[in-house]
């Protein structure tokens, strides 16, 4: 599904922030990406999300060389990936419903065809009562769930979540984790970037540990 081969990345003329990163994400898998702050977790996610190009090495996404994707192909590829940003990145002038429906709207689908689907997902993540509310009114946990719902609405094959439990209390963090596990059981590959060791210890899952730009995989 995703394959990194000897990937290295540096910003400008600076030192390499990622070095010889080699790993793969198989279909229907669940894994954590962890490491200390500043180790390169977000950078690695951005590479997987095709918003950065590696300085060297090969990234293969869904059987395609990421370096050879045309802009429209990149957009198509991103539709197969769901991402939850650490800072949510909801659009403040759109309601929760509109934010969650956005990935389907950019696919230029008719709203009548997805309205019920979006409402159902909002109910599922516990935001059924908040679908007409603008993000600034939402609590941190609600924003997090809205961001997750937006990542899930287009049924991605892989979900990337950057510190999804970083801004929520432990109870909500556990509920969100259960949500990710449910998603994994339904066939989506899930990668969660976190530095919360206690959270990871609650689940028996594959771990990708990044330290000083190098990645080690613990199956």
């Amino acid at each position: 599904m995703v394959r990194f081969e000897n990937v290295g990345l540096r910003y400008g003329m600076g030192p390499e922030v990622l070095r010889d990163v080699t790993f793969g994400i198989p279909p229907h898998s669940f894994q954590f990406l962890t490491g200390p702050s500043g180790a390169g977790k977000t950078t690695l996610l951005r590479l997987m999300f095709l918003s950065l190009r590696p300085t060297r090495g090969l990234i293969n996404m869904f059987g395609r060389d990421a370096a050879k994707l045309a802009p429209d192909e990149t957009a198509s590829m991103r539709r197969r990936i769901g991402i939850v940003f650490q800072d949510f990145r909801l659009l403040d002038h759109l309601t929760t419903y509109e934010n969650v429906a956005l990935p389907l709207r950019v696919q230029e689908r008719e709203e009548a065809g997805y309205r019920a689907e979006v409402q159902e997902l909002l109910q599922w993540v516990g935001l059924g009562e908040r679908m007409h509310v603008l993000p600034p009114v939402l609590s941190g946990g609600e924003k997090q769930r809205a961001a997750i719902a937006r990542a899930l609405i287009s049924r991605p094959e892989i979900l990337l979540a950057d510190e999804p439990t970083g801004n929520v209390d432990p109870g909500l963090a556990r509920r969100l984790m259960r949500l990710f596990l449910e998603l994994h059981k339904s066939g989506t590959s899930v990668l969660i970037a976190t530095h919360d060791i206690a959270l990871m210890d609650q689940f028996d899952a594959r771990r990708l540990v990044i330290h000083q730009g190098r990645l080690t995989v613990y199956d």
Partner: protein
Amino acid sequence: MIEATSPQQPDTPLRALRLRLRRADAHPDEHPRSGRSIVPRASVTANALVAVVAIMTFLAGITIGSVAAVRTVAADWTSDIARETTIEIKPGDGLDVPAALSRAVALARQTPGIADARALDERETADLLEPWLGSGLDVSNLPVPRLVVVTLGPDAGRQTIADLRASLANEVPSASLDDHRQWTERLSSTARTVVVIGLAILALVGAATVLCVVFATRAAVDAARGIVEVLHFIGARDTFIAREFQHHFLTIGFKGGAIGGGAAMALFFLGSTLPGWLAAGDPADTLIGAMRLDPRGYGGILGVAVLVALVTAITSRVTVFRTLRGIS
């Protein structure tokens, strides 16, 4: 509407209260819609740009209206002048002027394409000379040229003038024909110059509009950079994002175009009707009377307004594509 359920059960009074407040916020009767513009209105200086587009359209409308008015007036004058021509009989040694006048009139009337010919009598000739020679002039005692006014028929052409000129050369050698070509050429030349100047002003206004829209679009895309990034990340193609911006700017263009074009049309309309309201006599006698515009002139202003709106939309689309390439 699907009945809402929350994973958070109201197991405490405080939580139950929060849940009730959330339900109050939820507007359950309202049908959810996602038709709202993805480009937030507040992120672009929309009102300022509407004003700029309106001013540009107004200037372009005034220019094209003025050009149309000048062309109409010039065409009217040229037509008036071209409908008449003059035969001048110069007095010479032993020339029988009345006989020459009669012969010239007869020749003119015989020429195909000429509707009428009439010799100015002595009184009319004296009236013409009055500004220079004073009143009470006896033209019969002075060697002044005499004129025959020839009115051309609707089928008159270049050949009519040539035939008349040839006949006069043969039979009344002292006559010369003035076909007013000098004046019509000057008028045509003036009208052409006005048109060229108008087109140059239109080009400048167009360039200024394009530049304003380019800067405004860049500013709008920069202001909405975070939104553009999110749209990219959720799989939006550049064409979709550009369309969102283009729709926004087309609306601005049409608003500005309607205001500016409407103002220009109103000005011309007032210019043509105000003299009548003020009882200033014939509008053509006043300075603003020259601002009368025919339907084609109004059509031109309308066309300019639509053109400005389209230029605004197309410019913003091109600029958004360029800016998106920079972002991605």
